[in-house]
């Protein structure tokens, strides 16, 4: 059961941060409604909404039939008339079934009609658990190429908490990618007093360094930090920039950092071709190319679905070792 009493600034699990943010925002705003498969009595596949049915009742905690498109469409209509739906996808991968509703109805609504659609879709995504091709994908890039959405990818408990509340308050459809691998592995401080009411461009410079700027999000930020400490021992200083928000993108911080380090790598768990790393690389090469002393490096998943077997999966996900070795080479270029 998520820590009911988690006090300000306490250290909590990433998964509990999500749970707390949902609960606190539901307490604060009676128009917030949760929808998703098995979120009521069962508390969701990951138990994030355990206890919610009792506290908030079955009007606000809605088990849905297995119908992602219908659910997103209903949420969109409801959001237009004063209800604030938060949808839990059981796994991020299943949003493909509601893709049209999301990209053509929800995402375009404000631009078409100037009528806001305040809604959040929580997307438990990412690999590392041997869960195979349909429970491990990293699909944020599809939505970053879809004008009208906002995209959030927290790596730490604090951002997970703060940005989920902000996402619910934001008047736009927000995709909130939560990384399953971090649920019970990441634990850190959260501050319950800072709850902005919009998702805005932001980044975390987690570590300053003079040699290479490394940009990442989600689970990969943790592997990047691991690599950075290893490399620090070798005298290579990495500046680690975490992006808890991918849209809107805080490109300014990235460009400033690259200007200082002259070397840059982007690391993501998503497949390479057309991944969001390409966009960041392209922006750097448009706006900061003269500051570069080396090519822009992308360290990513290869272009294939996630394999089931853990040994096979492990070779695909950028490891701290692989990151170290590629960054060492980058330093030498």
């Amino acid at each position, binding site marked *: 059961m998520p820590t009911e009493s988690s006090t300000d600034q306490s250290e909590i699990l990433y998964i509990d941060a999500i749970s707390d943010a949902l609960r606190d925002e539901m307490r604060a705003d009676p*128009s917030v*409604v949760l929808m998703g498969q098995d979120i009521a009595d069962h508390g969701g596949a990951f138990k994030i909404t355990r206890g919610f049915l009792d506290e908030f009742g079955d*009007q*606000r905690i*809605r088990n*849905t*039939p297995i*119908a992602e*498109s*219908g*659910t*997103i*469409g*209903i*949420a*969109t*209509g*409801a*959001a*237009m*008339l*004063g*209800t604030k739906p938060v949808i839990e996808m059981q796994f991020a991968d299943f949003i493909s079934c509601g893709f*049209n*509703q999301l990209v*053509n*109805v929800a995402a*375009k609504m*404000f*631009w*078409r*009609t*100037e*009528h*806001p659609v*305040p809604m959040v879709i929580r997307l438990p995504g990412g690999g590392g658990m041997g869960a195979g091709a349909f429970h491990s994908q990293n699909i944020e890039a599809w939505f970053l190429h879809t*004008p*009208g959405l*906002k995209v959030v990818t927290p790596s730490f408990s604090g951002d997970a908490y703060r940005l989920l509340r902000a996402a619910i308050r934001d*008047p*736009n459809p927000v995709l909130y990618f939560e990384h399953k691998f971090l649920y019970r592995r990441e634990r850190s401080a959260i501050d319950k007093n800072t709850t902005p009411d*919009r998702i805005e461009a932001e980044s975390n410079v987690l570590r300053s360094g003079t040699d290479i700027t490394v940009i990442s999000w989600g689970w990969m930020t943790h592997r990047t930090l691991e690599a950075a400490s290893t490399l620090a021992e070798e005298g290579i200083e990495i500046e680690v920039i975490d992006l808890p928000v991918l849209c*809107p993108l805080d490109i300014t911080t990235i460009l400033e950092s690259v200007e200082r380090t002259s070397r840059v790598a982007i690391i993501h768990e998503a497949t390479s071709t057309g991944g969001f790393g390409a966009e960041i690389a392209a922006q750097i090469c448009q706006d900061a190319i003269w500051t570069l002393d080396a090519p822009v490096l992308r360290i990513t998943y290869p272009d294939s679905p996630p394999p089931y077997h853990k040994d096979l999966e492990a070779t695909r996900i950028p490891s701290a070792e692989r990151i170290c070795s590629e960054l060492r080479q980058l330093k030498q270029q």
Partner: protein
Amino acid sequence: MRELDASVHDSLREMHGYMRLAREWDLRFEKMFRTGALSKWYSSVGNEATTVAAACAIEAGDSLLTLHRDSGAILRHYLDIHEILPGLVPQTSSGRKSVGGDSRQRFLRLACQMLGRKHGFSAGHERSYHYNLIEEQHGLIHIGMISHLGSMIPVAAGTAFAFQQQGNHQVALNFIGEGATSTGDFHEALNIASVWKLPFILVIENNRWAFSTPTSQQYACQQLADRGQGYGIPGVQVDGNDPEAVFTVMSSAVDRARSGEGPTLIEAMLGRHRGHSEADDSLDLVPADEQDGYSSQDPLDLVEKKLVDRSTLSVSDLAEIRNRCASLVMVLVDEAMSMPQPDPDLPRRIHAD
């Protein structure tokens, strides 16, 4: 079940007034299309009995979600006919109060919207019926279509969900063509709406053709109303050319919805009077005798015959009503034509602040 208004004749006169207005609206744009003033037009001709009568059965505060053949419902939902065409129909007639606000202004903006003008509801960013008009102070909730068929059904159910959530007794009314019943969203939305007992009414305008595709290539059940059973909701087929029949069926669906019993599926049988859009030759595929059958059941002809047969109106009354509607449409469309085009340099935000 709510009965037709005590003054049955007056109610029919009112429905006829809106039907005629919708018809003249469409005829005007069809003409503009033919003269090249407009690049595309999807006609509502033949759908007026269904759309007007259905919109007569809802109230201010209810949500309306329309497609490309629903000018009748839109005009009924937006306009106070007594205000824009004083004396055209008796004051006593309406079973439904009109929403407030300036009807003429709304009508003009609607014309601007059709013409892509700056003062249209989407300021030229969206085509024809692809816009919303939500005036909360007047209880006017109208959400227009996106092109993707079926997509608005869940959204409509979502407005019903908001009503249920807020504990008011409003209902959502959504129209679709029979072609859109083949989409997954039709199924997902009706199923969820039924499980959650949402106050939602889905009216299928079955005009027997989807672009060039006849119903025999679209579905293989006896009637689409039969799908209701698979969702545990009433599925009712009705003569979509008869506004009184549609109103009756709609009224009980609305009552059911307002009293928390859930959705209803209504299949209104209509004729195919025009091509898919005015820009294609799809009408050629409709056999001549089938077309004749539809023409002989033109809902405006039928309602006018009924009004004359019942001695509610004379032939010359009808001519006058027609002329007044046509003139009003003419004036408004001309006015809209003289309004400015949208400004290409005006920024439009992709995110709400």
